[in-house]
């Protein structure tokens, strides 16, 4: 397998502090999940229902997208469709320009990580500020989230102290509670000064046109309440048919992610502030993002990857994630779910080793609250990688063959010798076994096994020479 960043893997494995941080965090999150599920006797039924609802929604995505759109519009939201990352990011950029906004507060969103929104906004002179504590820390550090629900899992209090001193100019503070207060006061000012708040969406509700956000800190509430404008960016797969489906999904999400029966805040947002309501944003935009999702949708088996509700349970239970951590996975999504969606969003040959970064122990599939068969999809993707590699290999071989043929054709002596060799080689019907192993393998073997060659005719040159020899005797 080519392109495996082995050197980086070894660095991660050799970093004892990091290994301990990953181990303790994933073990703790797994334990919390297990304890929380002990008090949910209907867990298996809920999983089955969640899987059935997601399956149904994805299979009927077109009608649910339209239903969502018309209900969102009816409640005064605006719906924006984005084919790819650039279109989604450009929309926010244009909106900021149009509204004369510079400061943009953001609540935690894997989708905006996926489209590289912060980089794009910053590149154009805007100031995007992450407000989830973990995301804020990694933004200051200029890194990517390490884990879907615990983005700064790899940072110690000492890392945070150094970062705050360097970036915020505050005195060194190593107490976690006080570090949190520092972030609170810095970010509080940002919330109150920002013109635009950007969030993701945990769910989009078709029968309501609503955006649902789940969080613990209150930063998503502030992001969607304090600024005049709220932009929610969501993949088209985030739909649920009915608000009532949340009774199932919310019970699964909090418990699977952090072991909470419900996260601290769940916001069900339908359109901007209404006439008589006192506060809330005046404008709400929902950006529906494709960015590779419709391509993924075309595979009837693999489209179940789109059921994912981003709980992170598969990461916590994965023996590979527990060793490699988050940053060794390419793209925004790490762990087993990353190993199945990243290749599908980007194409399998971008990081062909990714579906192989699994021991196939099956834990990811067992803990998935929406029953995505992750191990099966990993195998399917491995097969896709092999097919793609074979196709590339075949292409190379073909090109090589034609170059050799062209050379031979331009050199009469060579042509004649090649003809002699071919007729010797192909005489009788055991010619296939006489092919050198180098040629007779892989795709070529399959191709050759289906074909019989006529005996090689003698060239005119050879016939003429033979006749001259016979005449001379």
């Amino acid at each position, binding site marked *: 397998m080519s392109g495996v960043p082995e050197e980086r893997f070894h660095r991660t494995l050799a970093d004892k502090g990091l290994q301990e*941080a990953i181990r303790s965090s994933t073990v*703790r999150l797994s334990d919390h999940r297990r304890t929380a599920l002990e008090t949910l006797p209907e867990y298996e039924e*809920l999983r089955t*229902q969640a899987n059935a*609802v997601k399956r*149904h929604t994805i*299979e*009927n*995505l*077109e009608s649910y*997208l339209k239903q969502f759109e018309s*209900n969102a519009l009816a409640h005064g939201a605006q719906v924006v*469709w984005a084919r790819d990352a650039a279109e989604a990011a450009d929309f926010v950029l244009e909106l900021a320009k149009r509204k004369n906004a510079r400061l943009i507060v953001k609540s935690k969103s894997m989708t905006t990580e996926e489209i590289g929104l912060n980089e794009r906004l910053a590149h154009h002179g805007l100031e995007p500020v992450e407000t989830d*504590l*973990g995301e804020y820390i990694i933004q200051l550090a200029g890194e990517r989230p390490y884990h879907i629900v*615990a983005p700064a*899992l790899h940072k*110690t209090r000492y890392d945070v102290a150094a970062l705050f001193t360097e970036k915020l100019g505050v005195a060194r503070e190593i107490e*976690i509670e006080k*570090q*949190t207060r520092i*972030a*609170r006061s810095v970010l509080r000012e940002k*919330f*109150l000064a920002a013109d635009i708040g950007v969030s993701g969406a945990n769910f989009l509700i078709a*029968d*309501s046109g609503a955006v649902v956000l789940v969080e613990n*800190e*209150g*930063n998503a*509430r*502030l992001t969607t*309440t304090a600024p005049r404008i709220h932009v929610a960016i969501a993949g*088209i797969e985030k739909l649920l*048919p009915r*608000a*009532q*489906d*949340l*009774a*199932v999904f919310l019970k699964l999400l909090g418990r699977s992610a952090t072991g909470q*029966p*419900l996260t*601290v*805040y*769940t*916001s*069900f947002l*339908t*359109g901007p502030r*209404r006439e*008589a*309501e006192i*506060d*809330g944003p005046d404008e709400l935009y929902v950006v529906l993002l*494709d960015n590779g999702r*419709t*391509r993924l*949708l*075309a595979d009837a088996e693999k489209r179940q990857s789109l059921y994912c509700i981003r709980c992170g349970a598969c990461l916590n239970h994965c023996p590979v994630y527990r060793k490699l951590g988050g940053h060794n996975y390419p793209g925004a999504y790490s762990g087993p779910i990353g190993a199945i969606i990243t290749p599908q969003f980007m194409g399998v040959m971008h990081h062909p080793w990714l579906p192989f970064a699994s021991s196939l122990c099956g834990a990811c599939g067992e803990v998935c609250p929406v029953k995505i068969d992750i191990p099966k999809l990993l195998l399917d993707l491995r097969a896709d990688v092999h097919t793609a590699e074979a196709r590339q290999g075949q292409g190379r071989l073909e090109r090589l063959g034609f170059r050799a043929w062209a050379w031979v054709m331009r050199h009469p002596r060579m042509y004649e010798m090649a003809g002699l060799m071919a007729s010797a080689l192909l005489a009788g019907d055991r010619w296939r076994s006489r092919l050198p192993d180098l040629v007779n393998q892989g795709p070529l073997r399959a191709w050759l096994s289906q074909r019989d060659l006529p005996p090689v005719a003698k060239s005119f040159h050879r016939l003429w020479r033979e006749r001259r020899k016979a005449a001379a005797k």
Partner: protein
Amino acid sequence: MTAREQILDSVRAALGSGPDRHRAAPAVRISVPERTPDARIEMFFSAISNLAGKPYLATSPTDACRHVAGILDGQPAVASNAPFLRECGITGLASVQTGFTDSGALRQACATAAAGITCAHYALADTGTLVMLASPEEARLISLLPPSHIAVVPQARIVTGLDELFSLVPQPGELTSSMVLITGPSRTADIEQILVRGVHGPGEIHIVVV
């Protein structure tokens, strides 16, 4: 072709005509357990306490007002425009500002208040959750900006849990632009998995059931 048309076309093309298309959605799964009012209060209080919230059962509206006054201890607070808070006499307390209809003025008051006082529309017994619906009576920021949130809940509004909430409010968007479920104080564990309360929202929650 617009992005909308192209995405919808791609979705249509990708899905083809699978066996599940146009079939009815799986039936909604909602089951509401039977619980006596007392059992609900007991469950609610135990869930709140587990989350480090502070519950109090008031014997009367006057008792509720007395309890809230005790928590405030003269510190500035903002109360929502809910009629029930007025009925309890809470809006008449000396350090309590109320009656905001302008978002700018409200924001200013909330930014400096020690506590926000609201009247929850529902409470979920099994998870210790408050359900807040934004309306002319309830602003969003009162339960969000001040470091402490005091929620007054008439006893009849305590429902069993999420399932009952969604059977009573099948479409929250018909009622409000914002329905928020609040389950305990704001918290984070983003640094070394150490729990810290009150990171962005209130770090303290007091619940007064009347």
